[in-house]
């Protein structure tokens, strides 16, 4: 099923997220034997029909939903059956953009973005005076510094999505999960958001797991790199030894029916998979 795995030579690259035979049912089966391994710095794009289990997969990845069977390892730690308070420590190193946003209505944009830092501060990680600087920096990254004092309800959908991204990346986590970052947005805003996600990946080297309905989002992640000198996205060199890998996964009814790079995806003959590929 898998087209390419970590090259056998040299020390195997660190794994940031690993699913092993993960099964989960609510009133029906939602995840059905999910297996994959995601390396540090890697980009993974998950495509799939509505209800195929993409959001649940992300929630399982950070232990928000316990699995029925199988094993999930997050940043090298087996989180299956871990207590909530122990999960907090692992989750502190993961950024998440939720499908519904998950911004706290009762807090200003600034406080929302500061929230993960303040939690780290409680753990003695980020010093207090650093918080405002990092919040401003994260908001500048998504070009929304001027909204610091506003409330999420006062922003447009696209702006809220960007604030969500700022909150997800403010701690500079080694792994960021994005659930449908472009859903329901106009093409211009959608492209802006994908550019931000690529920029985050290429400036911080974070591994990114992206759930999307738009094939072009995955295409952009695979084919473009953010060039900090030019300050814009440029076409990738195409040399797999220098570039972070982009792997596509296609989900159907809780199963991963395709896993592989863009070339393999475009070559796939599976009619379900082909529906997600635009040529």
């Amino acid at each position, binding site marked *: 099923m898998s087209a390419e795995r970590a090259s056998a030579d040299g020390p195997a690259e660190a794994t940031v997220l690993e699913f092993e035979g993960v099964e989960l049912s*609510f*009133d029906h089966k939602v995840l059905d034997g999910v297996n994959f391994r995601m390396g540090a710095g890697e980009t993974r794009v998950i495509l799939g029909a509505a209800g195929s289990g993409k959001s649940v997969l992300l929630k399982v990845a950070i232990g928000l939903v316990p*699995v029925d069977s199988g094993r999930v390892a997050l940043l090298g730690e087996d989180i299956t059956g871990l207590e*909530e308070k122990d999960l907090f420590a692992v989750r502190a190193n993961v950024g998440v953009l939720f499908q519904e946003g998950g911004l706290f209505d009762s807090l200003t944009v600034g406080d929302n973005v500061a929230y993960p830092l303040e939690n780290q501060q409680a753990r003695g990680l980020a010093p207090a005076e650093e918080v405002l600087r990092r919040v401003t920096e994260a908001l500048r990254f998504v070009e929304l510094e001027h909204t610091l004092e506003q409330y999420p309800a006062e922003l447009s959908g696209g702006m809220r999505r960007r604030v969500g991204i700022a909150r997800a990346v403010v701690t500079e986590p080694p792994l960021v999960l994005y659930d449908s970052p472009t859903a329901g947005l106009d093409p211009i805003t959608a492209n802006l958001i994908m550019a931000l996600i690529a920029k985050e990946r290429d400036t911080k080297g974070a591994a990114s797991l992206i759930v999307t309905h738009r094939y072009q989002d995955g295409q952009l992640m695979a084919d473009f790199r953010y060039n900090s000198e030019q300050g814009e996205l440029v076409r990738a060199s195409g040399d797999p030894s220098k570039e972070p890998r982009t792997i596509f996964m296609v989900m159907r009814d809780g199963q991963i029916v395709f896993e592989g790079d863009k070339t393999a995806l475009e070559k796939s003959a599976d009619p379900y998979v082909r529906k997600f590929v635009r040529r």
Partner: protein
Amino acid sequence: MGGAYGSLYDSIGIHEYGGLETARGEISPVNEFLRAWISEWQDFWFLAGRAFANIFRAPHYWDDVALQMEAIGVGSLPIVMLTGFFSGFVITMQMSRALNTYGAVGQVGPIVMITLVRELGPVLTALLVAGRNASGIASELGSMKVSEQIDAMRALGTDPIQKLVTPRLIATCVMLPQLTVVADFLGMVGGFAISYFSLRLTPSQYWTPAYQILELNDFVQGLLKPFIFAMVVALVGCFYGLKTSGGTQGVGRATTQAVVVASVWIFVLTAFITRIFVNL
């Protein structure tokens, strides 16, 4: 599914009750219904247990407690005062007619006092607060649930029970007994208004026997009830809020359920507590 903590979250946090739709043919609808009911009951007690345990555990969100006290206490004050006054007013009118037939209109003070302190004050205040705050809590937490704010909270290292449920529990338990005292007092004032202007009783004819009738038993009952009702209002509101699913429609459903269930429990519990105390 999952450990103890996990099972709370997957039922309150994520699990949707299949209700009567059986995916597995061998389970009868009745069994399915019972199973859902029992698991709901378990989840409620699990939430209650954790909410109470958190009172004695750091971190404490005192800001949230203060905010909730204001919303529940100060916010409910006008309506509680108004309702208290008029309930005293009407019981006095009704009672005086009955007492008149025995020529015992002078006894109206103690009767109104007992009725208010033991029963009407606590129950009416709790019902008002259930209508205002159990619904408010359920809809607030419900919208947080469907917009994934609860998930985000957990993802960002905050226990939603500690941050959302425990402050509401503390605030309601502190405010409801006080609101009840206010309602009791204003009820007496309402009764006095009728006694003075219509029944032509002097202030001391009304107030003195009314105060003399009170015993420790009445105080205990009059304050224990609002305290227990407070737990019901806060926990039922939080419970239905946290297990909301199905978008904005789900929020509406959770709100209605919270008010109905909390109100029913207030009636059931007051009967139960009264039964115990009447025999003392």
